[in-house]
């Protein structure tokens, strides 16, 4: 019997390793790019130009069923959401994708407990829903920068202006000719989108973003820089 602790590799492990990433273990044991160069310069790239980060270790749940909304309301006080809108649930954020389908994105490692809580709520209420942990099947990349909306319009036909695509909204769309869920989650005042799609397309999508982002000076950044930008925005109360 093997005693080795299983390594969890994101779909972008090989790509980020090839770019010289140093790795850190987060969540359930995911190895994620921590930094490629200096954290400070990576933070500057995100603030001043355009940055891309692998956030595939984020937990990802899919909740399906006619009772899903009622269950989420009972478990987390979820407000009424239109399709594409989102609200906070526990440590994650819940997006309504269809009348009977929700996606919950959690902090790395929180998905199993969140799934358990939702299933318990459903069981208590006698609701029939299906909760599936999709973390392993998804690749998530975060794209951050002052001109990120303009950049996104190179790879996707959606209108990314704040009026048409406000913070906290998710849309299922074609992005770089692949099916993706595009989520707008700004970091304070810094506009940012997360592109969530099939694991197998991750390397292709990443390379396509890097190529399209050349003119914006796109820079891969690691978990450390991303965390510090987020912490900084929280400290500033934005």
């Amino acid at each position, binding site marked *: 019997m093997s005693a080795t602790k299983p390594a969890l590799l994101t779909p972008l492990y090989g790509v980020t390793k090839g770019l010289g990433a140093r790795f850190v273990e987060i969540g359930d044991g995911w190895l994620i790019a921590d930094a490629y160069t200096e954290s400070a310069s990576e933070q500057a790239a995100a603030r001043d130009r355009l940055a891309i980060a692998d956030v595939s270790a984020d937990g990802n749940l899919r909740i399906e069923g006619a009772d899903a909304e009622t269950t989420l309301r009972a478990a987390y006080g979820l407000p009424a959401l239109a399709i594409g809108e989102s609200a906070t649930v526990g440590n994650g954020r819940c997006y309504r994708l269809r009348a009977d389908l929700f996606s919950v994105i959690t902090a790395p490692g929180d998905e199993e407990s969140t799934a358990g809580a939702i299933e318990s709520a459903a069981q208590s209420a006698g609701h029939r*829903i299906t909760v599936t942990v999709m973390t392993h*099947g998804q690749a998530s990349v975060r794209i951050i920068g002052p001109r990120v909306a303009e950049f996104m*319009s190179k790879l996707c036909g959606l209108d990314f202006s704040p009026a048409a695509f406000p913070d906290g909204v998710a849309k299922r769309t074609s992005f770089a000719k692949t099916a993706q869920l595009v989520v707008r989650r700004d970091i304070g005042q810094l506009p940012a989108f997360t592109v969530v799609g099939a694991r*197998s397309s991750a390397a292709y999508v990443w390379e396509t973003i890097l190529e399209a982002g050349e003119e914006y000076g796109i820079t891969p950044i690691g978990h450390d820089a991303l965390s510090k930008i987020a912490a900084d925005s929280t400290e500033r109360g934005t």
Partner: protein
Amino acid sequence: MAHEGDTIGSALAASGVRVISRSFKYHRPRGLLCCSGHCPNCLVQIGDEPNVRACMRPVEEGIQVRSQNAWPSLRFDLLSLSRFASRFMPAGFYYKTFIRPKWLWPFYEHVLRHAAGLGVVDPKTPRGKYDKRYLHADIVVAGGGPAGISAAHAAGKSGARVLLIDENAELGGHLRFAGARPDSETAAVERLRSGLAGMDNVEVLTNTSVLGWYRKDWLAAKSGNRLFKVRLGSLVAATGAFERPLQFENNDLPGVMLGGAVRRLLHQFGVAAGRRALVATANDDGWDVASDLRAAGVEVAAIVDERPAEACASPHGEALVAQGVPVHYEHTVVKAVGGKGVTAAIIAQTASGDGVDKGTCKTINCDLLVVSVGWTPDTDLTHLAGGKTRYDADHAEMLPTELPSHLHVVGRAAGTHELATQLLEGAIAGRGAAHRLGIGPPPDAAQAAELQRLKSSEPRRSSPRVSVPGGMPKKRFVCLCEDVTEEDILATIAEGFDSMQLLKRYSTVSMGPCQGKMCSMAAIQMCARATERSIPDTGTTTSRPPATPVSLGTLAGQDMEPVQLGALHDWHLANGGKPMVAGRWIRAEHYGDAIAEVKAVRDAVGLIDVSSLGKLRLTGPGVPDLLQRVYINKWRKLGVGQARYGVMCNDEGIVLDDGVCARVGEQEWYMSTTSSGATGMYDWMQWWIQSGWGEGLHLTNVTEAFAAMNLAGPRAREVLGDLTDVDLSNEAFPYMGVRSGVVAGVPCQLLRIGFTGELSYEIHCPSGYTVHLWEALIAAGQPHGIKPFGVEAQRVLRLEKGHSIVGHDTDGLTDPIMANMEWAVKLDKSDFLGMRHLSRVAEHGPHQRLVGFKVSSGGAKPEEGMQIVAASNGKREVIGWITSCRLSPTLGEIIGLCWLPAELGDREGAEFTIHVDGRSQSARVWHGAFYDPEGKRLRT
């Protein structure tokens, strides 16, 4: 010597270069004509990029500019001798001349391609960098002249999201090269332009050309190598107008230039286009040019104005006359004189109609002949966006009449030439376009009335004259792109091609790079005159996108070809796996020796990555009901812990997909599909679920969430047993069983199934653990001689078992009965998709059969796709084809699957003939598996 900001055209003009290109057919010398990127006269080759308009392309350090369509050189082009054969090359001559004898066409083609045409495309040119961007706007204003600026400003002020597109580097339209204007006019435009810069809701794209309008809310534009796809609510077409050439003898000589071109060179680049100019005009614009030239120190030899003196209202008139510039009223130019450039012009007094009084001809020496006789509104975009135009005889221009509500046309494109009127028209259109979308107030009614008054009082700017008689009509060029002369047009009409569409196709007028911008109005007028019809009755040609030439690379955009990579992709590459394309997936074909991989599976153990298989999770009480309907076989009695092979058909009984479905819980099932079928089967079943099948059923595509690998071979149990606590004994975990368990510390789903005919475990794990689990299995298998095996070995192994692959051995016409899966078709079920068709096939029998075959001893291996033939009435006829064929390393024989007529395929041992590379190869029908037909090994 070029200066910063110069175009190639302006730099050449400044250096005194007059001949820039040679014409398409007669190789006549051509020089700058329009300087606005519309005519074909300055097309050059830059590096490996053909057909670049020199007048528009900025000069760059080290740029390599070559002439096109000249041999041996631009200056001494021997191909220009073709002019002596011009009498044998009337319009349409090639339609009649080169059709016989047919076998000589390759020769004709070679010669014609050498003698005619434009630049050279180098097929070895590396792919350039192209991309695209999507834009969204309430209102797009196409054209950044005064009317466009005013429209964008008004719409922006109303609160609309505005996109202003202009093909030039700076906004301003004709004002950029219009010379000195009254301060009040300049200030008004400047105020609007700077107002735009302060509006967050207005985006300005310069150096960008609109390509076309598609449907009602979709516009394409390009800038360099970038394509823009724009979604919009309303369009304001402020596309301006092209200055109209005049047809007189030698009107294509270098040195004959349009007035606007001369002013562009003068005011934008500080270049005088000649030393001694003659200005032929029919409006006050020509006088403006003469005044500008004079101010720049160019001698004005004469102003030749078609109009009588009393019709001239130019503010420069008195000054020019006072300065001694000769003016010839009611005269026009008859001929340009010169060889490789203008040296003189012959003028004559105008007579009734389009005629001239030949007795009044005078020769005036000049090296620049400026033509400024009128304007052709650029209505391409207007037409593409659904607008209609009609010839306005009073203004001698084709003007917009009926416009859909989403379209406004302003400025010169609408026949409005006075600046103040252009600004007012733009403002009203901008406000109106916004208001239509529910943004801002409507336009002021009083202003709209004032606009109508101003427009109706505008003087005519364009001459109704089509051409100037006298001299040779075969040297009066109508279409400069295709060298179509007035004589060609008249000959075409005389041959009966007297509608504009036929005239265009036969004579090729307007079919060149300028797409009719320079010539279509003249062709219409000539056609109308020759056929004695009105211009509206003559009609126009059809506007089609792109309105501006665009490279295919720009349309294609960034190179985006999605591929799917499994979690083990890097491992495969690092361990000698040869990548192969399987749909969008990249899989390992083999690791260097596919035969050794087959032997490892048969004799020891092998491991294959099958993560690309589709994987679906089904939950709910209604799952058995759905499976019973979508599969052709039975599912209601499948117990927890059991798996079953199933085939899905569409409602016509055609095989869609196959795979294994396992019941992993009371109300939870785990289905696999083919690699290419995952998304399609998910959508197919979701469609039926949404239609009401399967009570309380939820379907989730978990293809990407789980990786899968198949451990196959007689020693598979031993290898797996080292890594898991799951009881793998045949009794506890029989063939077609499914178990959950931990393998190498990873939570897995184990299915005792396989495609190879050996004891096999298909292990599914969360994708993030894939590399860990794979490496653990490889390590555990080392003492047992494990080998990773690829797609090629798997195909051999399954073929030895006689298994077909859906989509490879079957096609879009295959039903399961003909595909030898009759055993799976359960017609005693109450209903399932395809049942009605299959009931009929079962009753009458299939006409074809997918069967196994063995090639007779010593025969060559047929390739997949080869035909099976039979003699019939002394002829050989195709009766079937090979779908799979391999040399079996296990059996030492060539085996395969093929389609045969049912009466032949149903007879085991029947001999048939395969057509292999021109020879006949005999083979015999084989029923069942070639290897282990009783299936003992996989159940061991």
